[in-house]
């Protein structure tokens, strides 16, 4: 991972990406895929659910009551299935959703995972100063770069150095998160369960799918940052594809292979792909989302699905045919370089999280489209949904009710919905410094983009919207249309939010084993048939136990 950090990303790329990421706040999906979507999403799904087992059996409480937030009229309406609302621009005179003083002037030490450079220090950041004033707190983020998170977080836990408030990105697959939550963090049930959440109206605007991630053993430990249901997309560089005389929207596997072959031109250094597209292939072949729950209540892993090995065999053939960039083995974990190759037309297609659309769209000269998924023989593919939340934010164990209330008030502010005054402040900062108004539309300045690296917007929030007035024209509409086409293909993970002791303790290493086995097949080091043995090893190593535990948990949940 340090390689990603050290390989030097251009400043402009970072600036662009950061802005959109923050504006669309969340970005989880943007970085998840390619090196390990499956591992990541499996984690976000199940690591949160269920319970740690060991805790004294406190009474199970209902989830927070959902009160839909008041929203401005969107340009394009979203849907209950997860299609996001589209707005032309951010309303600048939105209503106030948080009243009264929030903090007590004390320090707010919070762990946040960040993606860009560290934010400028508070005395040089009017944005940070404004938030301090708004929250009446001294916000002190402990910023952990995403490339270091897997090392830094366990070290903080092991050294008992976690700050008072901690935001954990769920896709990072932190080992034993439920146990950690029960051992070290405050049970928020009495403040959030049922109608109690209405005291914090913006938190009440977070949907059930988000809350389930912080719901352990029937108790509520964390406040989520919601994530869209869509996981990954293939971006097509239409100008490169058209120049090669190919069709950027294939309808089946054969056409997809033709496209990959047609755009690849090794002499010119142009390749179809630059990373692993294993998940895309699996979804094309109809491989289920991590698990299938059969009619008799038993759980069967997606690895055992009959289409898994054939899908990987096709993937290996594609790689062998030479349409992947020669640096693919390293590009798999180097998102910055992959993005740059796509922008410069050296990759005709980019498989990435659905929020990457913002990163791509930021460069207005990039002509691109989003490929609609398709089944291998035509028709629909399946599209795996995520776990419903990007991150979960918790407070260290305390009995200080005032402190807990203040924590929730802060999150209530941060979770203010699109269109509100607070949300505008979170996204844009100080006028004249962080943003300027052009033709009635707020436009972030470079400085504003830099100062948003504070990362506070990542830690709590309800449904997100599509609003990228600074991106390529029509990009929101493009994404909206894509989402509508994908809705019929959405497929949930039946084990999401179910608790499995084995997944909790061994899930991360088991997923890594499978990921390594897939990578070996993809890059031609092993034959596709080797996966059968790998799956067997996965099953005996803990997969079978997980299936059993999920079945029990599902039966219990009804």
């Amino acid at each position, binding site marked *: *991972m*340090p*390689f990603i*950090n*050290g*390989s030097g990303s251009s400043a402009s790329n970072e600036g662009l990406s950061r802005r959109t990421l923050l504006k669309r706040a969340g970005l989880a999906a943007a970085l998840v895929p390619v*090196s390990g979507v499956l591992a990541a999403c499996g984690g976000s799904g199940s690591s949160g659910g269920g319970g740690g087992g060991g805790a004294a059996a406190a009474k199970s409480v209902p989830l927070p009551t959902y009160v839909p937030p008041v929203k401005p009229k969107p340009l394009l309406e979203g849907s209950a299935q997860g299609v996001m609302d589209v707005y032309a621009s951010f309303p600048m005179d939105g209503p106030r959703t948080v009243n009264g003083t929030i903090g007590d002037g004390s320090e707010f030490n919070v762990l946040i995972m960040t993606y860009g450079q560290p934010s400028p220090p508070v005395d040089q950041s009017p944005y940070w100063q404004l938030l301090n004033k708004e929250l009446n707190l001294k916000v002190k983020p402990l910023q952990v770069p995403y490339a270091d998170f*897997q*090392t830094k977080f*366990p*070290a903080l*836990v*092991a050294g*008992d150095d976690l700050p008072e408030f901690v935001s954990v990105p769920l896709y990072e697959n932190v*080992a*034993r998160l439920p*146990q*950690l939550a029960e*051992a*070290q963090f405050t049970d928020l049930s009495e403040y959030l369960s049922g109608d109690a959440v209405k005291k914090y109206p913006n938190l009440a605007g977070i949907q059930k799918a988000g809350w389930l991630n912080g719901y352990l053993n029937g108790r509520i430990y964390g406040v989520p940052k919601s994530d869209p249901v869509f996981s990954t997309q293939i971006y097509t560089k239409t100008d490169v594809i058209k120049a090669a005389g190919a069709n950027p929207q294939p309808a089946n596997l054969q056409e997809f292979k033709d496209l990959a072959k047609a755009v690849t031109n*090794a*002499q010119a*250094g142009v390749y179809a792909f630059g990373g692993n597209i294993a998940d895309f292939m699996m979804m094309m072949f109809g491989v289920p989302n991590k698990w299938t729950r059969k009619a008799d209540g038993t759980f069967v892993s997606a690895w055992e699905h009959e289409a898994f090995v054939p899908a990987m065999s096709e993937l290996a053939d594609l790689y062998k045919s030479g349409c992947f*960039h*020669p*640096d*693919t*083995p*390293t590009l*798999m*974990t180097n998102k910055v370089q992959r993005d740059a190759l796509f922008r410069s037309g050296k990759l005709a297609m980019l498989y990435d999280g659905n929020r990457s659309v913002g990163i791509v769209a930021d460069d207005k000269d990039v002509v691109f489209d989003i490929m609609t998924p398709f089944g291998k023989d035509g028709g629909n593919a399946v599209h795996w949904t995520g776990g419903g939340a990007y991150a979960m934010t918790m407070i260290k164990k305390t009995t200080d009710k005032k402190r807990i209330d203040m924590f929730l008030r802060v999150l209530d502010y941060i979770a203010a919905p699109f269109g509100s005054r607070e949300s505008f402040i979170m996204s844009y900062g100080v006028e004249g410094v962080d943003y300027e108004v052009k033709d009635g539309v707020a436009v972030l300045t470079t400085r504003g983009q830099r100062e948003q690296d504070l990362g506070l917007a990542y830690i709590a929030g309800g449904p997100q919207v599509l609003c990228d007035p600074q991106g390529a024209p029509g990009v929101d509409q493009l994404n909206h249309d894509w989402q509508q086409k994908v809705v019929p293909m959405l497929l949930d993970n039946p084990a999401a939010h179910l608790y499995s002791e084995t997944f909790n*303790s*061994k899930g*991360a*290493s088991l997923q*890594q*084993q499978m990921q*390594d086995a897939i*990578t*070996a097949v993809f*890059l031609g*080091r092993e034959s596709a048939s080797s996966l059968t043995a790998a799956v067997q090893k996965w099953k005996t190593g803990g997969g079978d136990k997980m299936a059993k535990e999920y079945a029990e948990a599902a039966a219990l949940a009804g």
Partner: protein
Amino acid sequence: MTLKQALPRVAPQSDETRQTSQKAPFLARLWRDAPLLVMVAPAAIVLLLFTYVPLLGSVIAWMDYVPFLGFTGSDWVGWDNFTALFSDPSFWTAVWNTVQITFLQLVLFFPVPILLAVLLNTVALPVAKKFVQSVIYLPHFLSWVIIVALFQQVLGGAGIVNRFLITHGLSPFDVMSNPDTFKLLLTTQAIWKDAGWGTIIFLAAIAAIDPGLYESATMDGAGAWGRFWHITLPGMRPIIVLMLILRLGDSLTVGFEQILLQRDAVGPGAAEVLDTFVYYNGVVDGNWGTATAAGLLKGVVSLFLVLAANKLAHRFGEEGVYKR
């Protein structure tokens, strides 16, 4: 270059003190050595605090250790972690890879600084010698991230060399992501980075050889080869043996960062070594107990290697790192 004189000459002196010290009473010896003991104290304390005290943490090899439950809250599991470790094929892959890399580095890397030092010593022009020395020391100061990136830029699939081959219609080659040759690649990188730096101590050893010996040998008609074989090499021998033993001690530490950076390119089958195994198992996946067991085993094997190498050194009449 204080090492120049110090290294070979310190040994005989300490020999004498040792012999006399056995006769004097303890307190007298303490009083006599007090200044030396005071001088060594800070280093000893650091060693104690940061090497020996943390060793106590190894007890988690016998626990199902969960950091946030601590030593008191975690369960004792007996030898479960070791059983799990030994039955895990990926552990044995890591062991085998480590042994292979250790062997390769010993055979291919270890002699390079010695040869370089001898060659450098033959450069007559001081300016040229200094220049060459500076150049070959330089890569030592680059971090692995930069070195791996450099190799990638030059030899990678889309590196300068392969781009040239492809644009000229020739078939490219693959060394950066080829699991079969990965260990050679690692050794090559290590040589490129550190062989120059490694010459320092051998140059010091050469410089410490009495020039009178060369003069006498020349008078007696010894040629360049004869002088090298009969004077330079025997003169360097104690240092070579010492370095070899020290190298063996941490020979199982085959380059964590260097391998971590390139592991994904070739897969764990070729690149997982004990250190990365511990990292992924313990730090990333949270199996602290098993990872500690693996680390502990590595320590035990390293200790054994040092003892064995030292014994061998004694057999060849060398001093080794400590006396019999």
